């Protein structure tokens, strides 16, 4: 099988990957972007179906413009392509095309822009149909003009819950309430710093005003403690985050969207051998990178949310920084002021991010708080249907070793590879609050996603490339 050789291969066509691709292709390098989705844009710039955009409008037209510019710059866009592993040479990406045929891609430089996924935390009934991430509700609303339900509660933590609630209101959905685990929405000295970033502050304030006008209740210091229903959720029960064993209210709903922010998606970077460390604030595996996003491997960059959660504007800055570093190494002269301007933008955004982070409970705090609300009978790992009690039992006898708990119970070993339950398994394994957040980096294993058997058979028939 032929290996497609390019100057740069970028995995992930979200804000970071697109920004890097555009800059590199504009300078004349041959660039391929690979993405699992049917169209470029990633999660943030998720493209609506053309018919949805025509009738109801495009929620982020700037995303459409960026995708158009990337295509016009001559970037090869391989959408609907799944990158599922790395070849024995440690460089060749093993890919499956939309027709399930194997494809091999190799770049002199590799840019990993695989984004983030949401951070759920289990509760009894979280596996019921109708319980989803806020991201799913947002995609349904913005890209598909489809309401997730008629009466919905949003829960979890972080600024993302507010725009999702507004998107649901736009579709005529009754948002029965927003349960936020922290207490971010009050004037506090910490919030004052955001005045230096009026645009971003206005955005959040705008959502809050919209929700207030629609009289959407905002319950702070509140977490979901259970969901009930048969083959679809019918009610959600909430409690104070600080006293999760005493429920305070039950709300009738037909959909519940819960998320505690985002986690970097680093499995491909780890599979490529990029050094990672456990971020003490989040417990998440985070690649070790220099300012340009270059990893411990000289030819591999990690950018965007995969490099650490920062939001779309940060992702674009990181994408451009990596592109400029590569162009420098290729002997291109940077444009006047480009490097300096980018560094300044990066500093401004990092400052805003620190302020926003300070408003919401840190993941390490959630990992201390939430396990106490999780009864032993609750499903912890949804793929393998492993209960919290099973994992706790092993954790007690096996010295709180996450990998032992996984091996004995199969928690985190199903098709999602612990992406949904990994944070919770790690948190639950820590038995006493004094233990601190364990460095439970789930090992990355091949394939990153299940691969169609047909693809593997075709590869086996052809043997490994020279």
């Amino acid at each position, binding site marked *: 099988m032929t290996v497609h050789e390019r100057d740069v291969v970028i995995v992930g066509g979200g804000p970071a990957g697109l920004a890097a691709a555009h800059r590199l292709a504009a300078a004349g390098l041959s660039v391929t972007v690979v993405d699992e989705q049917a169209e470029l844009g990633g999660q943030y710039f998720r493209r609506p179906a053309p*018919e949805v955009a025509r009738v109801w409008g495009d929620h982020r037209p700037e995303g459409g413009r960026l995708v158009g510019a990337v295509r016009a710059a001559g970037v090869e866009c391989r959408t609907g392509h799944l990158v599922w592993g790395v070849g024995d040479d440690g460089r060749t990406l093993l890919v499956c095309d939309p027709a399930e045929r194997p494809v091999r891609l190799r770049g002199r430089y590799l840019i990993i822009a695989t984004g983030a996924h949401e951070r759920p935390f289990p509760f009894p009934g979280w596996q019921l149909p109708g319980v*989803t991430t806020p*991201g*799913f509700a947002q995609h*349904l609303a913005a890209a*598909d003009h489809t309401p997730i339900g008629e009466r919905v509660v949003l829960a979890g933590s972080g600024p993302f819950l507010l725009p999702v609630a507004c998107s649901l209101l736009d579709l005529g959905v009754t948002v029965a309430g927003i349960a936020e685990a922290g207490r971010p929405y009050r004037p506090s000295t910490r919030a004052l710093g955001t005045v230096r970033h009026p645009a971003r502050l206005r955005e959040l304030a705008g959502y809050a005003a919209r929700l207030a006008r629609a009289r959407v209740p905002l319950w702070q210091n509140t977490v979901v403690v259970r969901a009930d229903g048969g083959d*679809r959720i019918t009610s959600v029960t909430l409690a104070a985050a600080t006293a999760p064993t005493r429920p305070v209210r039950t709300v009738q709903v037909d959909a519940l969207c819960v998320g505690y922010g985002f986690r970097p998606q680093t499995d491909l970077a780890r599979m490529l051998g990029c050094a990672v460390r456990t971020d003490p604030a989040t417990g998440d595996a985070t690649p070790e990178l220099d300012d340009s996003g270059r990893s411990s491997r000289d030819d591999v960059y990690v950018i965007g949310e995969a490099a650490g959660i920062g939001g779309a504007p940060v992702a674009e800055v990181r994408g451009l920084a990596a592109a400029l570093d590569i162009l420098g190494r290729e002997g291109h002269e940077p444009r006047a002021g480009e490097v300096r301007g980018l560094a300044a933008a990066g500093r401004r955004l990092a400052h805003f991010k620190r302020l926003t982070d300070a408003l919401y409970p840190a993941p390490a705090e959630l990992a201390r708080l939430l396990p106490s609300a999780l009864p032993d009978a609750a499903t912890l790992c949804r793929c393998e249907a492993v209960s919290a009690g099973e994992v706790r039992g092993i954790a007690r006898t096996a010295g709180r070793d996450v990998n032992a708990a996984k091996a004995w119970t199969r928690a985190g070993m199903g098709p*999602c590879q612990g992406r949904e339950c990994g944070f919770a398994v790690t948190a639950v394994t820590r038995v006493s609050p004094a233990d601190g957040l364990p460095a439970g980096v789930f090992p990355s294993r091949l394939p990153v996603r299940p691969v169609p058997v047909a693809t593997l058979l075709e590869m086996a028939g052809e043997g490994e490339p020279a």
Partner: protein
Amino acid sequence: MRAKAVIGTPPRTVTIHVDGRPVSVVEGVSLAAALVGDRTWTFRYNPVSEEPRGPFCGMGVCLECEVTVDGRPGVRACLTPVRPGMRVETEEERA
């Protein structure tokens, strides 16, 4: 903010077949949206617990939205745009 609807131009639709039933959906939306819009929430059953499951992440990560499309099993509905005439099998019938 989203642009207002253009009055008098209803969206073009296509017909797909869900467990043998014709369903009319807006052209090009995701299959997950098509099913949820049609009030189908049980996409599959968990092989271990046999509980009903539906889409969770909406971004290709959880694999809870896998259905059979035109005879091909294990297709993630959240990443798959609808095509006219598409034949979709959920496991809903099993209940």
